[in-house]
């Protein structure tokens, strides 16, 4: 079977090596490579092995950082907020309800313009209790001022931590970044990962230099109250401007990373077999990865279909998607999350980007909620619905519950 877009495993440096590891280990090594100095977290399945790995690195003197296990996720992000404000590169990781518990602090971190990177293992929100893959947790946080990246492989999960700090700390961005892995499908799955060379990472990612860090020589109030006629509105608008500015920075820094590490990450999106595609699937995370596999099979059967994989949900790649959809007959957007009263959140984002600019049938698909496996046949049925030029929302592989 012929494959496209295979990432080479050529080694850039003699210090790079390739080994097998889980997504959570890859993420922990990403944080280590990014030279994080302070880590605070609260355990939650399936995030736990990230912080366990980091704690063990510190215990074995492989990582020069302080790890503080706090008593809640709210406190984890509050502690990371505070340490970052002192000028120390800080990191945390969470999942699902932990992320929801952090919600208030998410806004606080972004509003204070702290370039923190956090890993989130996407897990369903209860009830009922469910620990499996579902992106509803992070989709719920889309309006908190954090950049959001969804990875499709363990390698990408590692590299995104490194790129994430670089982008977040850019003086024209200064917004935090959330890096996502689908629960278990990446977090607990072992696959080959190239361990980056620390020297090369150091060259790519300099030390944090927070201009407004806490300094008793220069006392300031951080996040004081502001009035309707003060600058409050301007602060919020500036966050939007910075989020827009991040699009350019993401492209530049991803390009730089690709050159230095011989990777070929797309910036906001990745395209797969879109050049001659009549139909397009739009997806995020590991669903997109499975879609690549299925697209190869569909192509063998004569269906000219391609994939637009969204890497950055925030800032959202409206223009990039529009550019690709100009040439297709119809498209479908896959969401592994639920917004009650709306259903497909990514779908509605895509539609708002297209509105008034092109008019093709675009359908919405809800898959894999609560970790329901997304199978080859599920993507095949999605492709068939797209080919039929369908619109509307389709729930895939839903059972009749009696």
């Amino acid at each position, binding site marked *: 079977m012929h494959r496209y877009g295979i990432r080479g495993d050529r080694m850039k440096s003699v210090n790079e090596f390739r080994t097998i590891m889980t997504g959570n280990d890859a993420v922990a090594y990403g944080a280590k490579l990014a030279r994080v*100095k*302070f880590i*605070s977290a609260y355990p939650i399945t399936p995030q736990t092995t990230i912080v366990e790995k980091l704690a063990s690195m510190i215990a074995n003197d492989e990582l020069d950082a*302080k790890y*503080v296990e*706090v*008593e*809640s996720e*709210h*406190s*984890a992000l*509050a*502690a*990371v*907020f*505070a*340490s*970052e*404000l*002192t*000028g*120390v590169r*800080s990191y945390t990781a969470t999942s699902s309800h932990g992320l929801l518990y952090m919600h*208030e*602090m998410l806004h*606080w971190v972004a509003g204070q313009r702290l370039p923190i990177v956090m890993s989130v293992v996407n897990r369903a929100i209860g009830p009922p209790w469910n620990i499996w893959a579902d992106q509803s947790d992070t989709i719920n946080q889309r309006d908190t001022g954090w950049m959001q990246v969804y990875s499709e492989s363990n390698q990408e999960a590692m590299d995104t931590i490194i790129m994430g700090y670089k982008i977040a700390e850019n003086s024209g961005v200064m917004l935090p970044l959330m890096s996502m892995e689908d629960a278990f499908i990446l977090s607990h799955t072992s696959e080959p990962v190239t361990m980056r060379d620390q020297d090369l990472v150091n060259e790519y990612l300099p030390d944090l230099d927070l201009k407004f860090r*806490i*300094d*008793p020589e220069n*006392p*300031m*109030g*951080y*996040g*004081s*109250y*502001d*009035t309707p006629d*003060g*600058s409050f509105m301007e602060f919020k608008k500036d966050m939007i401007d910075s989020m827009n500015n991040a699009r350019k920075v993401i492209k530049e820094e991803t390009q730089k990373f690709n050159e230095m590490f011989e990777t070929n990450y797309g910036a906001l999106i990745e395209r797969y077999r879109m050049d001659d595609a009549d139909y397009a699937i739009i997806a995020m995370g590991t669903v997109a990865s499975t879609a690549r596999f299925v697209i190869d099979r569909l192509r063998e059967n004569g269906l000219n279909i391609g994939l637009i994989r969204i890497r950055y949900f925030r800032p959202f790649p409206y223009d990039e998607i529009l550019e690709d959809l100009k040439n297709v007959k119809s498209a479908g957007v896959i969401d592994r999350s639920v917004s009650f009263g709306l259903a497909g959140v990514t779908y509605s984002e895509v539609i708002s980007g297209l509105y008034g600019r092109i008019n093709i049938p675009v359908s919405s698909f809800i898959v894999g909620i609560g970790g329901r496996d997304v199978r080859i046949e599920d993507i095949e049925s999605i492709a068939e619905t797209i080919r039929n030029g369908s619109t509307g929302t389709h729930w895939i592989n839903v059972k009749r519950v009696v």
Partner: protein
Amino acid sequence: MPTSIPKEELMAPGHTACHGCGATLAMRYVLKALGEKTVVSVPASCWAVIPGAMPFRTLDVPMVYTPFAATGASISGLREGLDIQGKSDYNVVGFAGDGGTADIGLQGLSGAMERGHNVFYIMYDNEGYMNTGVQRSGSTPYGARTTTTPVGKERDFKKENKKIVADMMIAQNVPYVATATVAYPEDLIKKIEHAKAVHGPKFIQILAPCPTGWYYPPEKTIEISRLAVQSRMFPLYEFIEGRFYLNKSFKPIDVSEYVKAQDRFKHLNEGEIENLRRYVEERWNQLLEWEKLYAGPVKA
């Protein structure tokens, strides 16, 4: 100058606290005791508003504003962040009200104290949610009228006794725990000096009378603060690394003298004042027991 209070002022004038604000005095004394190498974290509270709107700051030390429940965790992060950079000589102070400490921030406080960070947690206790307009908190005493325990026809004042966070901190065996109040700034500053000598978490609960929420004239703040101690409504004590010292150097007065000075207790009848009197006596006896239980050498 015939006072031992340090002259250095790290809280500037021009802030926007109410007339006669006890919380402001608490901050002024704490910073005098700690000096300029100090970083303060303040959650939602009166003190998040006292410095005024942007672009103003009223402290001559960095002040970090955090959400309501974040004080304990934020001082943990500040401490570790500074230590990582070798700045261990800076004092890290959480300065939170009683709502942010006894209620919404209790989990974060307990966690920070348990983890043993070298921090100060100052609870300025004005016995209610004064910033939002005088609502009941866990730290509001029995008998007090607040806007959420209003005295209507049914006389629905607060029926529960004060949740005393300092006592909880002793139960948690925090290395330094003390109570203080603004009427005795020398005592307050001395306690912070004692706390400074202890490496680890330090908790100090400062009674900060609030003319706006306790319904008394603003010039009476110090007087009320003094009566709180003398009436034993707010006993002063110190718990230093397992040893408990109760300040008994006051000539006790009857609870009614304290109660009658504030309109928040105006509605109480003699029977209800008797309830308070009994409560105060029981608690005092409990503290005397602690003094025996955690007996230490005579203090210098």
